[in-house]
């Protein structure tokens, strides 16, 4: 998992860890690793949601080129 991984990716990975833990045939080492990774993924999801602030950009065309400029929050 990288710093830039999105909420969607982190959530999917967290769901996969829960799924992995519910399989009976996982070796203990692997189960503990999955658990640790799951906790880290949970924190990451929570952090992404907590820190999110809406960004609004406006698409403008000037002399044939498109540019995006940030808009003030309302």
């Amino acid at each position: 998992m990288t710093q830039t991984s999105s909420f969607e990716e982190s959530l999917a990975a967290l769901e996969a860890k829960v799924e992995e833990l519910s399989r009976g045939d996982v070796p203990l080492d692997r189960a503990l690793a999955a658990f640790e990774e799951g906790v880290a993924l949970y924190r990451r999801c929570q952090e992404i949601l907590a820190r999110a602030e809406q960004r609004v950009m406006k698409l403008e065309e000037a002399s044939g080129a498109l540019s995006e400029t940030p808009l003030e929050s309302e």
Partner: protein
Amino acid sequence: MDAILTSEAVPALVPRAMSVTELTRILRDTLRSNPLLGRVLVRGETGNVQATAAGHVFFTLKDANAEIACVLFREDARSLGFSLGDGMEVVASGDVDLYARRGEVQIVIRALSPAGVGAFWAAFQRTRRALQEEGLFDGARKRPLPAFPKRVGVVTSEGGAVVHDIRAVLRRRYPLAEVLLAPALVQGPEAPTSLRNALAAVQGRVDVVILARGGGSLEDLWCFNDEGLARAVAACPVPVVSAVGHETDVTIVDFVADLRAPTPSAAAELVVPDAVQLRAHIEALRIELGRRMRDGLRERWTGLAALGERTSPSGYRRELANQAARVRTVGGLLLSAGPREILRCRERMEAVGRRLDALSPLATLDRGYAIVARGDGRLLTRAEDISLGEALRVRIRGGTLHARVEGKEVT
């Protein structure tokens, strides 16, 4: 002869005749330089509609008392969005100019839209039928919306309530999504082109597009019945959600869009997930994660005694020591996780860890301790968990004893 009649004097008395070309040029310049005649908006009924082989369309616009020639050049004719016929009530925008070859004042039309209920309805039905026959309304063409869009494109007018409403809903529900606003004209003859351009500009930069407009009259909403715009929506590489007017208004774009929303706010609700539900979902996952880890450890613990029967004492010790260390690590991790559920999970796991620790040097058996299990191999830790007459397995140095409970004192 009188000396006054010099050749220079003649023009002063008898004006030199202009050529027709010169005169029409003056007329044309006069028309072009008048600010009232550039980009006019005219309403009238069409007549003498004639399309040339080259693709230009000539016609007249008239009302009860007057008539004016009009020309729609090929490029503009192509982007008309409906087929022009005689006797249609239309609103046209264009520039007044002089067609010098015939000395005729004409409007060079840039954009045109039907006006009046009859014309609207006829044009609407024509476009609808054509696109339906091509299969552009088929349910199979509709694409699912992305579950977690990173960027949402919003094509609508820049000012006004629509943009505000959409931003507010997206901010409340799912602030993770960035909003990219592509401003466009949303009414008038030039709106279809403007909307198409905005859609073309935004579609490669977002995961989903909302095409929206607030409520208005039939004429106000007409641009969303434009055939060219409908085709652009159908060809858009990302899903499009339409939200035009009020719930009762239906436009051609609504038929082509991947999803039709009753209002712009509803469109915003549809394109993003709800962060409140997401938070609840990840909390549930965290609890589930702890629960399954706990259950897994318990099952393994139960199996340990049986494992001990089969493994060599030194291998068993090593294995137990490793597992105990691992459980302590996870215990430490959970300690910093905080929330109550995780704490419970940690306590449970620390208990398991302590039991593992106690067990791990199987050598304690050498000092006279024994491990007592039920007949099925599950470890027995409390006297009240076993009844009189039940079978026991007692692991002690040198082997396992099979015993039966003959009496019990609970302390």
